[in-house]
């Protein structure tokens, strides 16, 4: 007898079945095992149950039972099964804890199986029945509530930003440097909640003489991690509406992997051609400023060796590889590649919301072992990355694995090496 949760989750799975999932969730996977070693979770634990194929198989069995003819008739033959309450509990770990949706398995699969899409679908089904990490739910709620109480929040926010402005003016030795909020401009910069994602970019925008304004909202979208369709659209759209209201030409997304993915790649799928702004990562904009000579960097200002961690959502899932490298090479004399990198880079171990889930801290640090080994192999003393989740995870990895490193985002690194005239 199917429980209410099972019925709701089953309906959610059916609702989410698209062509990509339909291909990947039937007979495409030959169980060849090529993906196994590609996964940082498997690499760090050597647990066969945590390989990409084993994690996907938990969900695929249910999808096959519903959608594959042979599995409908003879489920024991293909390993298919009906969804149960116990499966949902199992999926919570497989989809939210043991998979960071990094897609490294996809680029290593000879067939093109989209394992993260299968597990993201499981996340959506779990969210529909309330089986989701509480913190992700809370963070999504906070984002939604900010829009609802925007009028009362506005003054508080602007007052705080005014204080940050002084830091910008001091750095640039320019009393006219500003952090405009909610003003009409060419660029709407969308930060995170931390000052480290406001002040350094503000210094760079001012140094480049850009026409820009700061968004009232945070870029992060924790509902996206949960596969919560309604809320993730709501959280994204408030920024798009703000951009429309301020008549900007472009949205610049802060150094946040999933926020970049959401606004750059996902939102156009959700809203069609309703919004027509260009969306870029600030990394791309910094690179443009550098190439046009609008900002000048002095590599000799960085004494230590520097390496770059490609956040999965910015790199493999976003296509931004060369821009941060060009910027970092101009800002640090001793830049070292982390290998393997770019599309083959390993996840830091904290992606897709895992870094926020304190209850899984031990697992997260274990899953980060591959990244820690990669960092150690570079010999670099400073790790720069372009995602706040990665930043926090790598800082913790540094302590946990005794890496003796400092960690920074690209904006901070640019500001530290900037030539102020």
């Amino acid at each position, binding site marked *: 007898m199917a429980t209410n949760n099972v019925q709701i989750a089953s309906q959610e799975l059916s609702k989410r079945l698209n062509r990509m999932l339909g291909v990947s969730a039937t007979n495409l996977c030959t169980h060849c095992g090529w993906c196994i070693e590609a996964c940082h979770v498997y690499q760090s634990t050597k647990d066969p149950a945590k390989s990409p*194929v084993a994690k996907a198989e938990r969900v695929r069995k249910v999808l096959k039972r519903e959608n594959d003819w042979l599995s409908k008739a003879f489920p024991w033959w293909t390993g298919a099964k009906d969804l149960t309450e116990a499966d949902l509990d199992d999926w919570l770990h497989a989809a939210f804890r043991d998979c960071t949706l990094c897609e490294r398995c996809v680029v290593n699969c000879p*067939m*093109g199986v989209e394992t993260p899409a299968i597990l993201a679908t499981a996340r959506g089904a779990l969210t529909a029945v309330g089986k989701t990490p509480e913190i992700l739910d809370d963070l999504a709620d906070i984002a939604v509530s900010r829009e609802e109480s925007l009028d009362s929040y506005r003054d508080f926010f602007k007052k705080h930003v005014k204080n940050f402005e002084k830091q910008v003016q001091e750095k640039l030795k320019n009393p006219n440097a500003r952090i405009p909020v909610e003003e009409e401009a060419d660029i709407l910069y969308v930060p995170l909640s931390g000052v480290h994602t406001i002040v350094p970019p503000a210094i760079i925008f001012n140094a480049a003489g850009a026409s820009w304004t700061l968004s009232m909202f945070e870029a992060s979208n924790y509902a996206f991690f949960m596969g919560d369709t309604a809320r993730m659209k709501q959280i994204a759209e408030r920024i798009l509406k703000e951009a429309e209201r301020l008549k900007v030409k472009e949205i610049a997304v802060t150094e946040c992997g999933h926020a970049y993915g959401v606004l750059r790649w996902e939102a156009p799928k959700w809203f069609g*051609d309703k919004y027509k702004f*260009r969306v870029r990562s600030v990394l791309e904009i910094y690179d443009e400023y550098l190439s046009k000579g609008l900002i000048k960097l002095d590599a000799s200002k960085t004494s230590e060796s520097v390496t770059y961690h490609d956040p999965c959502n910015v790199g493999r899932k976003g296509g931004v*590889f060369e821009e941060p490298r060009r910027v970092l090479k101009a800002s640090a004399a001793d830049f070292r590649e*982390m290998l393997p990198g770019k599309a083959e880079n390993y996840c830091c171990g904290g992606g897709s919301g895992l870094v926020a889930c304190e209850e899984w801290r031990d697992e997260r640090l274990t899953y980060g072992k591959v990244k820690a080994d990669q960092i150690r192999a570079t010999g670099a003393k400073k790790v720069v990355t372009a995602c706040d989740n990665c930043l926090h995870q790598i800082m913790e990895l540094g302590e946990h694995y005794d890496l003796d490193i400092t960690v920074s985002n690209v904006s901070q690194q640019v500001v530290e090496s900037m030539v102020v005239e």
Partner: protein
Amino acid sequence: MIGDSTLHFIEYELQAIALAWMAMIYLIKIWQLATLKMPWDTAEQKGSTSRGILQSYGAIFMPWSMESSRTHFWRWLEFGTYHVGALVAIVNTFTYPFAPDFMAWPVRLVFAVLIAPSVLVGFLKLFQRITKPELRMISTPDDYFSLAAMQAFLFLAVMALLTNAPVWRMWYFLVTAFFLFYVPFSKISHYIYFFFARFIVGTRYGVKGVIPQGKA
């Protein structure tokens, strides 16, 4: 003793019926897939869709392009050997009945030489599936049966080619007919899904400029 008419029926009429069946099932399955919505990327392109698709289809032929094949070259070689053998054995099911003049001894020998290694690789794959815990954990009866049935198909292809004896040909084409009926439902149908999946992956990564990308 196999009668000429029996062998003729197995090599022609039965194959035609089985092929028609397979085509019908695949068409229905493709239609089912086509009716599902597809969330194509509509954002401003950063890379090239066509180059992404090309790279996606070509990846399996370029062992250096994926870490999973680059660092496991022998595994890639096994993969290639097995699939070349399977392809030749499938081609042979058409050339044997429909181009008998072409199937002279030298050609049959070349075909047999191309297929024979895949029989050995098949045994290796079966052995690995049984002995490796990470593969055993994800294996289903369909996985074992599909591998074993492929072994029979490949072995019978080699024997039919080498001997040209009616009895081997009969068994080879009976197994072929069985395959044509069974394959659309089993994991062996991955070769059909492959073309859809690689297209989707190539498009998705191509649009974003993720592939073709240099490795660091």
